[in-house]
């Protein structure tokens, strides 16, 4: 699903040069739930941005869902993201002036679907995340966990193959965090999505198939996560 070969990314912050990624190569199979972990400044967010088509590497090749991203123009990348990727962020996920359903509908505005169909799909997505009855509320009327669930509903409403989430549980308490991680795992299991998250949270390990550790822009290790071990354990 995801193939990165010798990807490097360098950017400037003021006068400093930050080497966010140093010749990182990565391969992620379809329908896997992967966590990118590492200390602050390890480059995990940059790596996520690159494989999601949000950022272009300075060197190296990026192939996602069979498409070569490093040759695409800005508009082509936007189209790619619209069709193939669903996003969940830590903050600012939802447009405050739109209610839940309208927020979920947002990516569908980029398609040719009619108004009624857009509304129907959005409501379906909300049902999947368990918020069918909260669709008419504005974000400020929803709890942190509910807002993230709306964001997840939005990420699946276009049937994207790849779901990426940057610190989805960062702002949440333990109970809500568990719910979100469980929901993400459901997406992988029941909806055949590939899910890649960036997280600090060590508790995430038990939900994912694979954990990838980064530090200072370099891929340190890859090891199976709790879900894979569980499956392997069940199989073996």
């Amino acid at each position, binding site marked *: 699903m995801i193939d990165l070969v010798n990807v490097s990314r360098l*950017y400037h*912050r003021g006068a400093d040069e930050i080497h966010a990624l140093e010749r990182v190569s990565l391969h992620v199979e379809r329908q896997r739930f992967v966590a990118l972990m590492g200390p602050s400044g390890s480059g995990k*967010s*940059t790596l996520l*941005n690159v494989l*999601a088509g*949000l*950022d272009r590497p300075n060197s190296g090749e990026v192939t996602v869902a069979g498409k070569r991203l490093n040759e695409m123009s*800005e*508009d082509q990348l*936007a*189209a*790619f*993201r*619209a*069709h193939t*990727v669903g*996003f969940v*962020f*830590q*903050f*600012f*996920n939802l*447009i*405050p*002036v*739109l209610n839940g359903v309208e927020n979920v509908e*947002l*990516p569908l*505005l*980029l398609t040719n679907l009619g*108004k009624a169909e857009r509304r129907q799909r959005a409501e379906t997505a909300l049902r999947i995340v368990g918020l069918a009855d909260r669709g008419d509320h504005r974000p400020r009327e929803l709890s942190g966990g509910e807002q993230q669930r709306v964001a997840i509903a*939005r990420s699946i409403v276009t049937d994207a193959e790849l779901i990426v989430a*940057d*610190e989805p549980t960062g702002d949440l308490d333990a109970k809500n965090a568990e719910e979100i991680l469980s929901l993400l795992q459901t997406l992988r299991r029941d909806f055949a999505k590939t899910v890649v998250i960036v997280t600090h949270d060590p508790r995430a390990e038990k939900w994912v198939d694979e954990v990838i550790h980064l530090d200072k822009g370099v891929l340190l290790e890859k090891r199976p996560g709790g879900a894979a071990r569980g499956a392997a354990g069940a199989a073996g």
Partner: protein
Amino acid sequence: MKYLPLVWRNLGRNPLRSVLTAAAIALAIALVCILRTMPAGLDAILASAAANTRISTHNEAGIVYSMPYSYLAKVRAVPGVVAAISWNWFGGALDLTKGVEFPNFAVDPDGFAEVYADWGLEPKVLEDFRKYRDAALVARQTLEKHRWKVGDVITLQSTVFPVTLSFRIVGANPNQGGALYFQREYLEQALAGAGVQFDTTGMIWSRVDDPERVAPVMRQIDEMFRNSEAITSTETEKSFIGNFFGGLKQLVTIIQIVAALVTLCIVFIAANTASMSIRERVGEIAILKAIGFRRQTIFSTLLAEAGLLALVAGIIGAVAAFGMLKALQLYATGAGPQLGPLTAFAVSNAILVQAIFIAFFIGILSGWVPALGASRRSVAQTLREVF
């Protein structure tokens, strides 16, 4: 456009800010409308004189230099001249302390109907004008302003002749300058009574039969008097009026400068709001781009926001201007001789509609840079900075 609800909602994000901005823009648009109507009154007068074949003959030295009354007969005899009348400034005032409030002239009733045929005066009115020695035709706007009716008698004391005359109003005329016309002979008799001889005329107004013949007829008239005691200069009515108000051109320029300043003001108000409201949403816009909205779309919706707000404000401003102009017309016409027709505050739909378009374009213009900047910001960079 399916993004319209999103654009509209975004204006409701900070209702106070949107209302304040709209109010500021509306007031400024109202001001621009009011300013632009000032020269429009002058243009209206010029336009109404544009198409007719009326020409004026006056002493080349100036209108205060009169011509012998005998010139009238000679002008009437020129081929191509359908009719001609004499014209003398009476300078009558209702109240000497207020001065001359509207122009008033002594004219020949014979030929008046033909010279002013384009006024469409009713035959009965014209007949009364000839019949009654003290008859007067008063401009509609003057009748309205002083609330006079046909049949009323008014008295004017001349500021140039040592006489006071009473007139019987027999009808209205459409003159844009507010003029009153009465019979020359009435003045002549009154002056004779005061021991003053009256055998001059200030101007001669004639009608030419054919627009093509206007230029040659004018030349012929002037040629006729080239070697006489009073050299004449003949010009079309439009040229005469244009020259008469020529001095106001500079005032009009100043008015236009001020209107431009106010328009610039609107740009700043709108730009301030656009940049404030867009800057607050940097994170949100980044997310929209992440989801897959193209730069173009982001740019257009942000621009549409600024444009929509300005458009609504412009409509409100134009409506407010309409009301204010009506009030100004009641109060300010006759606001001294200094501005003449500039204080007609002639409301025209064209000006109001143009103002609305101006508002819309200003909205677009002022939102352009912030919207462009926001649409171009790199998503990854924004996410780095914001988180």
